[in-house]
């Protein structure tokens, strides 16, 4: 049935690892921001969780995810309902969504930042996007993180310069909330797969990508990470999964997502 592939790219390994985030979600809106997270959600919807819902990133909910490349218009896509941005918020606030997003900073609490870096709040050194939907998403529904370059600038010491999404920080837990109300799922990086199920919601390594050592992960993370001995290796994509991915991305735009498009197995 499923044959592990022998040749695959790091991008494809991360797509497959990312798809796992959506495996047990049931019927929720899966949103992947950026090409690899979008392919991860699409792969999950095309294979092991066909109950997922995805949009066309414009204004419709689809019964079949759109390919990320090789289309010249939105004609012929499998629309099932109108899903403009105001309707997206109705969905977000209902909690029936799981987003995979790519923050610029992630701290030890799982708080994240896409708004601004350095300086002061009134005069940041680098203004980025703004908080976008991160505050609302993080208090309303499940979120996973995608990090294409695992380093100590992303996984920073201390707290994020601007906390855009709520995490497992006891100091900031709102009145009437428990840690169980916060729902941060997987963290997919170019080195490993992690979650927040270490002691006291500590970041925890759950698998290392082929050829990557735990030392590399620890060196490139600016805070303490929980890791047990004898960590498993992130499973290689199957040939079947690679075939679905190539249907979802016929022009191989995924090969341009990670610098130099390295192979998935770096041993």
């Amino acid at each position, binding site marked *: 049935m499923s044959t592990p592939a022998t040749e695959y790219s790091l991008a494809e390994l991360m797509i497959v690892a990312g798809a796992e985030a959506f495996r047990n979600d049931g019927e929720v809106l899966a949103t992947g921001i950026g090409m690899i997270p979008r392919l991860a959600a699409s792969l999950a919807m095309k294979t092991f969780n066909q109950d997922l819902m995805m949009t066309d990133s414009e204004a419709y909910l689809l019964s079949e995810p759109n390919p990320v490349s090789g289309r010249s218009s939105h004609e012929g896509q499998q629309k099932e309902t109108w899903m403009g941005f105001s309707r997206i918020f109705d969905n977000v606030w209902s909690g029936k969504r799981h987003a995979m997003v790519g923050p610029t900073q992630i701290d030890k609490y799982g708080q994240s930042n896409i708004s601004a870096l350095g300086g002061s709040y009134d005069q940041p050194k680098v203004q980025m996007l703004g*908080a976008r939907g991160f505050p609302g998403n993080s208090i309303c529904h499940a979120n996973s993180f995608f990090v294409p370059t695992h380093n100590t600038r992303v996984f920073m010491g201390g707290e994020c310069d601007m906390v855009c999404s709520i995490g497992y920080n006891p100091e900031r837990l709102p009145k009437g909330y428990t840690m169980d109300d916060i729902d941060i799922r997987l963290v997919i990086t170019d080195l490993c797969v992690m979650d927040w199920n270490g002691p006291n919601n500590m970041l925890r390594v759950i698998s290392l990508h082929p050829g990557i050592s735990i030392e590399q992960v620890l060196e490139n993370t600016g805070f303490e990470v929980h890791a047990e001995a004898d960590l498993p290796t992130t499973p290689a994509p199957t040939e079947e999964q690679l075939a679905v991915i190539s249907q979802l991305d016929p022009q191989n735009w995924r090969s341009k997502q990670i610098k130099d498009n390295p192979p998935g197995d770096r041993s």
Partner: protein
Amino acid sequence: MSKVLSAQEAVAQIKDGMTIGIGGWGPRRKPMALIRELLRSDVKDLTVVSYGGADVGMLCAAGKVKKVVFAFVSLDFIPLEPYFRKARQTGSIEVMEIDEGMMLLGLRAAAWNVPYIPTALGLGTDVIKHSDDLKVIDSPYDDKEWVAMPALKLDVSLIHVNRADKRGVCQITSPDHYMDDWFARAAETTIVSCEEIVESDFFTQGDEARSVYWERCQTTSVVEIAGGAHPSSCAPSYGFDVPHFKEYNGSAKEGGFAAYAEKYVSGKSEEEYQQSVGGLDAIQKLPLPVY
């Protein structure tokens, strides 16, 4: 009844210190011709509420802005808006940074004449820490705390639509009308530019009335400007102008906004503007984006 005005007459309703809302989203269906008219005016000290794109960037660059209420300012394919970025990094504007959904709730509160809407959005994050305007309150019905998202009352809203009649019946045929209905309802004065003014009986045909998202009493002024969203998109008529946005973005590194404004905005009519970007035909041929 006719609410039809020239862009100049319509924008003359905007005074120093007003709070203005701008419809559209990022680089999509922004009332850019009205923004250009505002750039040509003497108005200053504006508070701008927007799902921001070049509308916010240009107004900041031209020194029109005191404060921006925002969740993001982005050109999408160019993620960071160059002039908003500059304004923030030089500390030249005040901000109220909120979640995208909080902005919608603030517009709804204004539209519904309530002082705030309780929400969980923003709890535990720095949006409630950095903004003095945002209060966290107890609920009379449960033991949790809630963000009281205040009404974002607007003096004027600027919106671009596909069609309107002279009485202010406005139709949006783009796939998403974004929060434009709420911008219209949250404002004292709503100025709408449109691709085309049509006779009122246009809306009696087929399902045309289904894509009218607010009642005409919410529309104050109507301005006909085909191509008036350029360089942002106005689906289904045209996409956004990628080369133009690249030039605009590049101007922040070389030449500055003054050079961009000199070339495209200052002392020019909208017709001259359109000629300088290839003419209305070229605008209407800009391909729609594929996401």
